[in-house]
């Protein structure tokens, strides 16, 4: 099982009121990856709930250093300062949480921050930092850069804003300036994954591949599946970094839910590659189990599941469909095909499909790169 799937289960156990089970599951991941940020966050939340505030703060310090934009970590830190009657620091952290809008997807973090600040959401001021984040997320890195610089004039120590500035510069391909900002970020938050990914890319672009890969490897200690790196690098037309395969961890029987230790449920039978899927046929995403976070399976989740099951024939069929689906997000399809290409059995097909997809989305230069990789993968497969 992938580490992130175990952490999803830990998170769910914590939500379901089983903090001990959550700590066991998170601990299982931490034993293998001591710097796994998501697992450390679950352990911190459980410690906070148990009143072990020092232990919780220690984990939270690491998580916020690795992921300065992590709103649940900032919200938990604010709550702990509040419990210790350190109102000034609690309010600083709470302000940071509300400024992470629109990254704050979980209303729980936002609500606890608003509670500490004693204001309603309507009363929140729109600061330059908020504007910077909104512009960055909506594809206006130039404007984001201006707002981020203005925000940093007032609060130069805010790592989250500096990270927004660095990402804006990265998206604008102003790599030297981005590197400067990443260096400052590392001085204060030397585990920052996003800064490490950007800096690794900058180094690789300058021909310092080994140093770039090494830095990326450091980020991999915190995010061993390179989920953030994949998401960030998928925005680029071309990059030279190599993302390792997602690791798997065995889960002991004692940590598995009863449903998994009982008789296994029959696996849906995938239809033949040339057989069209019917709505009521097993194998159709709608009939598939729910995703780990409880959301409905998307076509992308289904493709990932097929790759995980090593059902190469069906995975290839689904990937081909996705390449021709204009409704899907370009970044998602790029990232999925790059993931698929990491499986040797799918590499040549996935790179070729990525080439086709990039041609369809008017990116011939990036397509050429993918086709070249397809040719190399095919050569390797042919021995």
């Amino acid at each position: 099982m992938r580490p992130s799937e175990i952490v999803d289960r830990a998170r769910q156990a914590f939500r379901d009121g089983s903090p001990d089970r959550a700590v066991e599951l998170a601990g299982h991941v931490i034993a293998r990856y001591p710097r796994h940020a998501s697992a450390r966050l679950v352990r911190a939340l459980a410690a906070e709930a148990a009143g072990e505030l020092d232990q919780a703060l220690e984990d939270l310090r690491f998580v916020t250093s690795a992921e300065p934009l992590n709103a649940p970590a900032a919200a938990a830190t604010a709550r702990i300062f509040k419990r210790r009657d350190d109102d000034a620091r609690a309010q600083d952290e709470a302000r940071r949480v509300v400024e992470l809008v629109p990254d704050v997807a979980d209303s729980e973090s936002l609500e606890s921050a608003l509670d500490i600040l004693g204001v309603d959401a309507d009363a929140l001021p729109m600061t330059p930092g908020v504007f910077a984040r909104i512009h960055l997320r909506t594809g206006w890195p130039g404007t984001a850069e201006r707002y981020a610089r203005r925000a940093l004039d007032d609060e130069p120590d805010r790592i989250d804003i500096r990270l927004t500035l660095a990402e804006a510069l990265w998206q604008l391909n102003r790599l030297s300036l981005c590197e400067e900002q990443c260096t400052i970020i590392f001085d204060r938050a030397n585990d920052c994954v996003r800064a490490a990914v950007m800096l690794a890319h900058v180094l690789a672009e300058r021909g310092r591949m080994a140093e770039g890969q090494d830095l990326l490897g450091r980020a991999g200690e915190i995010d061993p599946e390179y989920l953030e790196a994949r998401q960030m690098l998928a925005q680029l037309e071309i990059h030279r970094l190599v993302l390792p395969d997602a690791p798997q961890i065995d889960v002991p029987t004692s940590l598995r839910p009863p449903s998994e230790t009982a008789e296994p449920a029959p696996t849906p039978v995938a239809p033949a590659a040339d057989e069209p899927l019917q709505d009521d046929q097993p194998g159709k995403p709608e009939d598939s189990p729910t995703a780990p976070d409880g959301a409905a399976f998307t076509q992308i989740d289904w493709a990932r599941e097929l790759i995980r099951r090593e059902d190469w024939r069906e995975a290839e069929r689904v990937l081909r469909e996705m390449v021709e689906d204009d409704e899907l997000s370009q970044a998602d399809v790029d990232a999925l095909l790059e993931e698929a290409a990491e499986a040797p059995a799918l590499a040549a097909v996935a790179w070729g499909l990525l080439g086709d997809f990039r041609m369809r989305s008017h990116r011939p230069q990036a397509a050429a790169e993918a086709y070249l990789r397809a040719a190399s993968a095919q050569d390797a497969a042919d021995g």
Partner: protein
Amino acid sequence: MADLQSLLANLKALDEVDGAVVWRAGEAPVGNLSASVSAVAPGLLASGIGTMEQVVQTVGLGQVEELWFLTGAQQGLAVRLGDWQAIIVATLDADIDRLRNAVTEQLERQS
């Protein structure tokens, strides 16, 4: 897809043509090239021509309408007509002017 396949067949059927690749803007290329070249050759040729077009356009020289290349064994011609593009690979002694007219005529029928 049917249009692409029939256009491809027509181009491949031209005298002295060894192989062809066709695509429409926003679609993946399809090709019929010699079995001795890589399976991704149609994609590579199309994306290579597309990259060259972008380069020429970026430096302000306008949009490429034709590109011709010559190797020790073959000659190739890429032609764009509106959204349609084609590349043919022909023998060294092929009459490239005749082929240019034939390819353009085929693309005009699609437009």
